[in-house]
């Protein structure tokens, strides 16, 4: 068993829900909808956490892609741009779970597995080095 976060983007006309049912039935995958967005009825975005056997997850992703659904692996909903980050530490002030932390040599590290997706760090970064993936 493994758990993986994926970001699905699909044209509005291809309904997300039936596809999801298909994933459960055919590929024995459990999933959690972490976030759902609909952008001006043009496209929809779903952030899913899926759980299942590795082979089933892979097959499920192939199935989604065959149905014109964009699938992107997501480690975390926020990404730190290393070229912009100066390791000032301002973002660590608002990260309540320690997903953003200073190392012993005062560089910033991002533990994406701990992230709670509160998005506070995006606004806290004076260099605008953190952006939301979704």
């Amino acid at each position, binding site marked *: 068993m493994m758990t993986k976060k994926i970001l699905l983007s699909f044209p509005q006309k291809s309904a997300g829900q039936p596809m999801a049912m298909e994933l459960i039935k055919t590929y024995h995958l459990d999933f959690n909808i972490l976030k759902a967005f609909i952008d001006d009825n043009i496209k929809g975005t779903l952030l899913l956490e899926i759980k299942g056997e590795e082979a089933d997850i892979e097959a499920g992703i192939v199935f989604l892609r065959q149905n014109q659904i964009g699938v992107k692996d997501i480690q975390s909903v926020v990404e730190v741009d290393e070229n912009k980050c*100066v*390791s*000032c*530490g*301002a973002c*660590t*002030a*608002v990260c*309540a779970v320690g997903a953003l932390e*200073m190392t012993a*040599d*005062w*560089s910033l590290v991002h533990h994406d597995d701990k992230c709670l997706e509160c998005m*506070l760090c995006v*606004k*806290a970064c*004076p*260099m*605008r080095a953190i952006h939301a993936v979704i």
Partner: protein
Amino acid sequence: MAKSYQEINEKIARGEAVVVTAEEVIGIVKERGVKEAAEYVDVVTTATFGPMCSSGAFLNFGHSDPPIRMGEITINGVEAYGGLAAVDTYLGATQPSKDRGIEYGGAHVIHDLIAGKEVHLVAKSQGTDCYPRTELDTWVKLEDLNEAYLFNPRNVYQNYNAAINGSSQRLYTYMGILQPNMGNITYSTAGELSPLLNDPLLKTIGMGTRIFFGGAQGHVSWMGTQFNTACPRDDKGYPQTPGATLALIGNMKEMDPKYIRGAVYEGYGASMFVGVGIPIPILNEEIMAFVAVENKDLYTNVIDYSVPKKAKPTLKKVSYAELRSGSVDINGKSIKTSPLSSLKMAREIAEELNNWIKKGDFFLQEPIQSFPMGNSLKGLEIKEGESR
């Protein structure tokens, strides 16, 4: 045995000067004692890289044909001062742009210029007999300008408060985002590596001191604004609250965009991260004893930023070692601490300055005038009445 600036500069020229950072010197003094260390070490490099709002650039664009006396000036949509001579301006770091607000301000324009980018210059004028043009719209790069120098009226604060929020609302401040109910503490210092904390009584740093400024060789040009040498000090002379500040000057054309960066403090405004390194000549044992200071012996106050008064309450006096540990105990509760200035970059700057001196590319400049001690701060009184 005392050393002179000239003797140290001669050693630098011969490639024999012993140069270490203000962090490295602590171990050397512990091992050899102050007396021997003062003989062995010639220069100690200090540095800081953090937000310094009171910053900006003087620019001269050269004359167009026909010429203009620039009145209203914007650069990439950021207003610059039009009250100087025809094509001179001052661009302040915190000035927000007309289109993007604080997300892109004067500091961002300055960074873009230093990075060699072309910027959009728009100017208007009434038109005069000698300057007939009334409008101008063009694109310029740093290399196209006659002069471009940073003149920052207040940089490298000697010590600064740590911030906390005692209210039940989240606060957006120049000390970063402060979580409600004393959720976190922020602080901004390079501590034992910080320039003015290594020379607390300004024995070697004064007008004319040559420095690392944004990657260029710049100078201390004056005392900084809100210069407070009358601040409370410990028995050795280290300030316990914000103390001295410096006004700095340096040629933008020699700077590196890595060390001058635009910054945004959410809900507060634009600011500029400035990289500064200051060499401290070890002239005698007294100066060596000062630079050997450690974070555990440097103190500041945790101040409640939720109180909308000039005099904000102090909750606790803490050492920089405690702040650096990651949490501070206040009223029995452990509160997370976070830095706002980059120690990593400050270390890089101290190393870079160190290399310049070792290679003989950078020489010490003795101050041509010392700054006053015992200088205190004035507030601003609000006076009633329409005319006086």
